[in-house]
């Protein structure tokens, strides 16, 4: 069984974000980029499934400009066997990404598609669900535990939901999106990084996959949230009630 893993190149989580002065977006020039943390968890899960003998191959996929290749190399260094880069400049919204994945899945025919639950730059939390919908596949999102049964070809997924944990059983092929507690991603070791340099990365364009990536959405403006105002120390309970009633209008 082949596993396809989606990895996204995002601004590193430790970097302080800045909005561009012209408010069209976030400053990404000269900023450290890395693999989305949830995508790392997804790739780690795929590698563990492969190491348990239930999959034969792990394919990492990334979509975006040419620099995505760096993220794919990191994925290859972690242990992915092959990588696919869909070269697309310009903004890619979740529906476009989902359509591209549908096309790739029809080409590669994986038994499992694992994605991170959301990307830390847009926090959409949509791509996994949309792909499952387009493919008509079952989906186990916010996975905190994944157990595969090879003969019966099904996956048992523990999902983290608001009320607690929900356990789902789904037939393969399926879509799984990973949550934080699923695993801890491994380090890419130096020898593996070296070996990854020679692994193959296949490139596609949206045209080759017959996917229209024009989006119905357009970002008009990005602004920073308003600065937190300083707190006020009140001198008595009466003053507090007065402020809550007349200034904050909450009682």
């Amino acid at each position, binding site marked *: 069984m082949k596993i396809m893993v989606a990895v996204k190149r995002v601004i590193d989580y430790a970097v302080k974000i800045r909005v561009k002065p012209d408010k069209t977006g976030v400053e990404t020039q000269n900023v450290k980029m890395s693999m989305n943390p949830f995508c790392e968890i997804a790739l780690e899960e795929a590698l563990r499934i492969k190491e348990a003998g239930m999959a034969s191959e792990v394919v990492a996929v990334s979509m975006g400009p040419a620099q995505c290749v760096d993220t794919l190399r990191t994925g290859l260094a972690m242990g992915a066997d092959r990588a696919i880069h869909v070269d697309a400049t310009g903004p890619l919204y979740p529906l476009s990404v989902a359509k591209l994945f549908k096309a790739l899945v029809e080409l590669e025919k994986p038994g499992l598609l694992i994605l991170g639950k959301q990307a830390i730059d847009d926090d959409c939390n949509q791509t996994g669900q949309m792909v499952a919908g387009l493919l008509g596949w079952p989906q186990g999102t916010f996975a905190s535990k994944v157990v595969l049964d090879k003969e019966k070809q099904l996956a048992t997924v523990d999902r983290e939901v608001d009320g607690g944990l929900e356990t789902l059983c789904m037939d393969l092929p399926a879509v799984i999106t990973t949550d934080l507690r699923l695993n*801890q991603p491994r380090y890419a070791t130096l020898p593996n*990084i070296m070996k990854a340099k020679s692994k193959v990365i296949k490139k596609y364009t949206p045209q080759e996959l017959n996917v229209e990536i024009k989006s119905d959405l357009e970002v008009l403006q990005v602004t920073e949230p308003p600065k937190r105002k300083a707190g006020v120390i009140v001198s008595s309970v009466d003053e507090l009630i007065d402020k809550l009633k007349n200034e904050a209008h909450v009682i």
Partner: protein
Amino acid sequence: MLRLLSISSKSISNSLRKSSSISSYSFTHLETHLCNPTSSPISSNPSGSPPNQFNSINPAKTPDGYSFSHRFDRNFSSFSSKIGFCKVSSSGYWLNCANLRTCERNGSAVLRVQGSVSGMRSFSSESDRESMEYDVVIVGAGPAGLSAAIRLKQMCIEKGVDLSVCVVEKGAEVGAHILSGNVFEPRALDELLPQWKQEEAPISVPVSSDKFWFLTKKRAFSLPCPFDNKGNYVISLSQLVRWMGTKAEELGVEIYPGFAASEILYDAKDTVIGIATNDMGVAKDGSKKEIFQRGVELKGRIMLLAEGCRGSISEKVMKKYNLREKRHAQHQTYALGIKEVWEIEEDKHNPGSVIHTLGWPLDQKTYGGSFLYHLQDRQIAIGLVVALNYQNPFLNPYEEFQKLKHHPAIKPLLEGGSVLQYGARTLNEGGFQSIPYPVFPGGAIIGCSAGFLNVPKIKGTHTAMKSGMLAAEATFGVLQEGLNLETYWDALQNSWIWEELYRARNYRPAFEHGLIPGLAISGLEHYILKGRSPFTLKHGKPDHEATKVARLCSPIQYPKPDGVLSFDVPTSLHRSNTNHEHDQPAHLRLRDPKIPEQVNSPDYAGPESRYCPARVYEYNPDEKSQLKLQINAQNCLHCKACDIKDPKQNIEWTVPEGGGGPGYSVM
């Protein structure tokens, strides 16, 4: 044709080695597996001795009687079949550290020196690391390291040979740990990459004006400018190093960011043969996490240490081989630079404007000053440099910097602007008198790790780069022509680095006696003697000894940050993009854990809680109201101030897991 002889050996600590028959094959790396020693192919051992000879109870037989093993790891750098490692130690690497524990074993075993003092990790597993071999291993992807790498590859192209060059860097990416003013003198870059302008190096703002102010609390007095920055550029060194990294990779240099060199590897003759990277995935208590990854050994025929000021490995090497004493050099003296990059209003921005100040907020006895450079894109670099031989333990360089920004001459410039990044780093001020002998058995020290900063010019980048280039040329001579690495030392002394540093040697020591005598002697040097002075002034006490005890000094009251121009440490720290994996052992080690509470706190009022620009060290009262030291290692900016300034030299800065630390991009 590559041969490997592997001999199984049994050691006290039960680390058994996989034995394999002799065959001609090359393979990527050697792995240690548990195996049955009796399955070793006795017959294939050419010297005919049974493998049990290597048993530790029988140490008499030296390994010289056996064929040694050549460890030829495939060179990944280029597919030209250059065999990386020709130097063979007669004992062979199989007979290494496992036997260390048996002290009767003669010196032919490979020694490993633990870089850390923690003692939490035992010696047991050091023999199971993967090992990779190169012709040259460079520690640190900074201006010096990358210049050396680029120069090596250039010479390879010129002479039609190939050498494998590996650069290992502890920052998460090239440039992440690079911080500097920076007014750049392109002298070395012109020699290294003359086409830098056409190749779009991020050097675009020439110096347009040069001012020098003396500040008092309320006023600024213009002084004649002692600097000559014509032809120089205002740049972000982090950006330049990033660009140099891409140039190096284009030439075939292998650069590995995210890997920290933590241990030095020696051979039987005490020659440095390589470094080992940190183990990754060790928990705070020292236990191995699920994702534990053993460090990797990087062995080079020549090692070049380019770690920057107070490099952890360089310091160890200098101590081990007595490199300072060899040249009768004085100790190194340091300063701490704290810097912010701001984006200011368009009409206040004047690209290429360079301002240096002296005086306020520092007092007469503290050497230091500030800088304010205008870059491109409405950005300015502003910072304060404080010499670390200050006497008052209550001095807080970070707070002094915050005070500086409120000065009436500086405040208007910053109003309406916002801070992009913050950072701090120590720099060397020892100059000529403190340069150690930079060659050691197995390699050389380049860049600020040796200390080539020109203090009156406040520039060290060009000399660091040139030293890297000279070391590369000497290394090439060693590897290709069998010359001695001492040629690096000779080349240094005949280069413009030496001449420049010699002429600049008296400026900084002149300030030993205070600001006014310092200015007077500097004036004499600069305008009258013009570098031809017959005397060489000496540095005073080492920085850590210069701190007076707290009871002899008065505490300094610092104003609260206003959140607009001045900020508290956590806010600033957030802007440095600093991060470390939190579940790892603290990389700041106390040689004696009792000293902070017994000496630092009572005698010196806990100076580390004041000079650390990242608030790593905090003294908090415990239940018994005793002040206890808390080390927030995760905040560390890798500036090394604590390693330098701790009064009893009790704090040892060791390298944390690779990839951690600040994330500078425009510093």
